[in-house]
C-alpha cells in the first residue's frame, strides 16, 4: 500500500484509545484524510483490514458521513453555510459570489487543487451568521467582500486568521487534529469573542448577575 510510512502505527494509536477497536473507525478515516487528502481506496482498505471489516462495511460507513471526501479535497476546503438562517442573512449571496469567484460549484475543486467548495449545513454558529469555514475553522459574520478577501489572501499565500481559532492550516493538517492528534493550538484564538460575550457584557452593564448561593 502506498500510504505514507507510519500510517498504520498512527491508526493503531487511534484504535488504542477505545475499549472496542471498531469505535476508532471515524477518527481513523479522518486520519486517512490527513495522510492522503481524501478517503483513498487504499486507506479505506487499511482501516477495514485493521478492524477486521469487509471493504463493503468500511465504505458503508465512510459514504454515510459528509466530511469524508471521495476525491482529493482542495488544500483549502471552503464551506459556506447555506442553512436558512445563515443563507438568508447573507450566506446564499456569499455562496454565489464565492462560487463565481473560484469558478467552481458545490463539491468541486479548482484545477490547481488549491480550493474545494462545499455548501455546508448549520455549523452551530448561527449567532455569528453568515458563517463560512476554511478547513472547518470558523470565519464569522462574513460579507461577500470579506469572503472573497479570504480566498484572495489564501491565494496570495497570506495567513488567514480564524475569527474563533488559529491561523487556518491545510485541509490535511486540520484533519489530523480532528483525528485526535494534538497540534498544540488549543490556546490560539484567545478568549470568547464579542458575540459570545454579548449577554455577559450586557449583564455587567445592567449590573445583573446570578444570585450567590447561601453558604453554610
Amino acid at each position: 500500500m502506498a500510504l505514507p510510512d507510519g500510517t498504520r502505527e498512527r491508526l493503531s494509536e487511534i484504535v488504542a484509545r477505545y475499549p472496542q477497536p471498531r469505535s476508532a473507525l471515524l477518527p481513523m478515516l479522518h486520519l486517512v484524510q490527513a495522510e492522503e487528502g481524501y478517503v483513498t481506496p487504499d486507506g479505506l482498505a487499511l482501516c477495514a483490514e485493521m478492524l477486521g471489516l469487509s471493504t463493503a462495511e468500511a465504505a458503508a460507513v465512510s459514504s454515510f458521513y459528509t466530511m469524508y471526501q471521495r476525491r482529493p479535497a482542495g488544500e483549502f476546503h471552503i464551506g459556506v453555510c447555506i442553512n436558512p438562517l445563515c443563507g438568508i442573512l447573507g450566506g446564499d449571496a456569499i455562496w454565489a459570489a464565492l462560487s463565481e469567484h473560484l469558478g467552481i460549484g458545490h463539491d468541486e475543486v479548482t484545477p490547481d487543487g488549491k480550493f474545494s467548495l462545499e455548501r455546508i449545513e448549520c455549523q452551530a454558529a448561527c449567532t455569528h451568521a453568515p458563517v463560512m469555514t476554511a478547513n472547518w475553522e470558523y470565519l464569522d459574520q462574513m460579507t461577500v467582500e470579506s469572503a472573497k478577501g479570504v480566498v484572495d489572501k489564501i491565494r496570495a499565500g497570506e495567513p488567514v486568521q480564524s475569527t474563533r481559532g488559529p491561523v487556518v492550516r491545510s485541509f490535511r493538517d486540520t484533519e489530523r487534529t480532528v483525528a485526535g492528534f494534538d497540534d498544540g493550538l488549543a490556546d490560539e484564538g484567545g478568549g470568547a469573542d464579542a458575540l459570545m460575550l454579548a449577554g455577559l457584557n450586557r449583564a455587567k452593564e445592567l449590573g445583573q448577575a446570578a444570585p450567590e448561593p447561601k453558604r453554610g
Partner: protein
Amino acid sequence: MALTPVITAHWDEPDSHTMAGYKRHAGYTGLSAALAKTPDEVIGIVKDSGLRGRGGAGFPTGLKWSFVPQGDGKPHYLVVNADESEPGACKDIPIMLANPHALVEGVLITAYAIRASHAFIYIRGEVPHAIRRVMAAVRDAYAAGYAGKNVLGSGFDIEIVVHSGAGAYICGEETALLDSLEGLRGQPRLKPPFPATAGLYAAPTVINNVETICNIPTIINNGVDWFRSFGTEKSPGFKVFAVSGHVNRPGIYEAPLGITMRELLEHAGGVREGREVKFWLPGGSSVPMLTAEHLDTPLTYEDIAAAGSMLGTGTPMVFDETTSVVRAVTGWLEFYKHESCGKCTPCREGTYWIVDVLKRFRAGKGTPEDLPKLEEICAQIFGRSFCALGDAAATPFPAAMKYFASEFADGTRAAANDLFDPVAATIFSGVAS
C-alpha cells in the same frame, strides 16, 4: 427578567478556557464535593434539582441517571452529546470553546454518579477548535489528577475519550450517536432496549447534552435550592440562550428559564431599526415557528408547549419581515432531506418528495392543489417515522401554513426572491456591493 451568567460568568477572562482560568472560580471543587458523597447521593441531588436535559427533549437528568442498573457487574458508560448540529443551535460549541473545563468537571461527576469508568465526548467533526480545547482540557484534567486512575485518591477510575464525528446531523439523535461511536453508520436504534440498560457496547449508558453536563458542577457546588431559585417549578434553572437572526446584538445570553422572548430580544438589542419580528423559532428548526404575538411567552418547556411550539435547544432564531417564509421552510426541508439517515421510508422518501414540491413554490411554480398535498405528506411522516428527525422534517411546513398560508399561495405565481428581496434580508444589506 435579569440575565444570570453562571456557565458564562467568566468568559470575559482571556484564559477562561484554561485550567488556571477555570480554577480561579472554584473550578473542580464540585468534583471534590461529589467524591465525598456516595454516587447515589449525587444522583439524588441532581434529581432533586429538577434539571432537565438541554439537548432538546428536556428529559429530567437525575431520573435518566437513576435508570442505570446498579451493581449489575457490567461496565457503564457516559456519552456526552456534543454533536450540536440542529439548525439554530449554537450554544454547546461556544461553551466548549470558552469553558471546556466545566464540561470535563461535569463529566467526571456524572461518571462517578452513574458508576462509569469510561466517558466519551462525541463532538461533531466540523469544529476543530472546539475539539482542540476539549482535548486540551481533558489532557490537563488527567495531568492534575482529576481524571485517570484513582481520581484525587478517591479510588474512582475514569478514562475520558474525545471522539470526533464526521458530518451527520442524525448522529445527535442519541441512539444514532451510539452506533456512530461504535464505528457504524449513524442510524438510530430500536428502542427498547433504552441506552440506560443497553447502550454503548450493549452496556448501560447515559447520554447527556454538553450544557446539561455543564450544569452539574454548579448544582453540586451551590445546591438544589440555589438551582431551583431560577426558573419555574417544571423548568428549574438557568439556560444558555443563543439568540440569532435579524437582531441587533446576536449572541449568547444566560438567563433563568421563564424569561420571555420579548425580554431576551430586548437584551439582544431588538430587531433591526425599523423592522419587526415576523416569526421566530424558540429552539432550532425542528420546533414549530411562532410569531410576534407569542413574544411574551416565558421561555419554559411548559409555556412554549402551550403556545404550540417547543423550547427545544433554547436557541431562538429571529426573522424580520424581509424574510420569505417559503424560502426559509424550503431551506430547512432541504436540510432534512440532506440529513435523513435513509433508514425509514417516511423520512427518506417524504423529505425527497416535499423538497421537490417546495422548490416549485420557491420558484413561484407551485399549484394550489400542491398545498393540501404537502400537508398530507407531512402528516404521513409525522408520528410514523423511526426517529424524531422525521417528525422534525414534518414540522416547518404545517407550522408555517398556520401563520403564513398566503405566502404559499403566492408561491403559485411568484418566486420567493421576487416577493422578498434577498438583499434586504441580509445583515450586510447596507454594505453589500
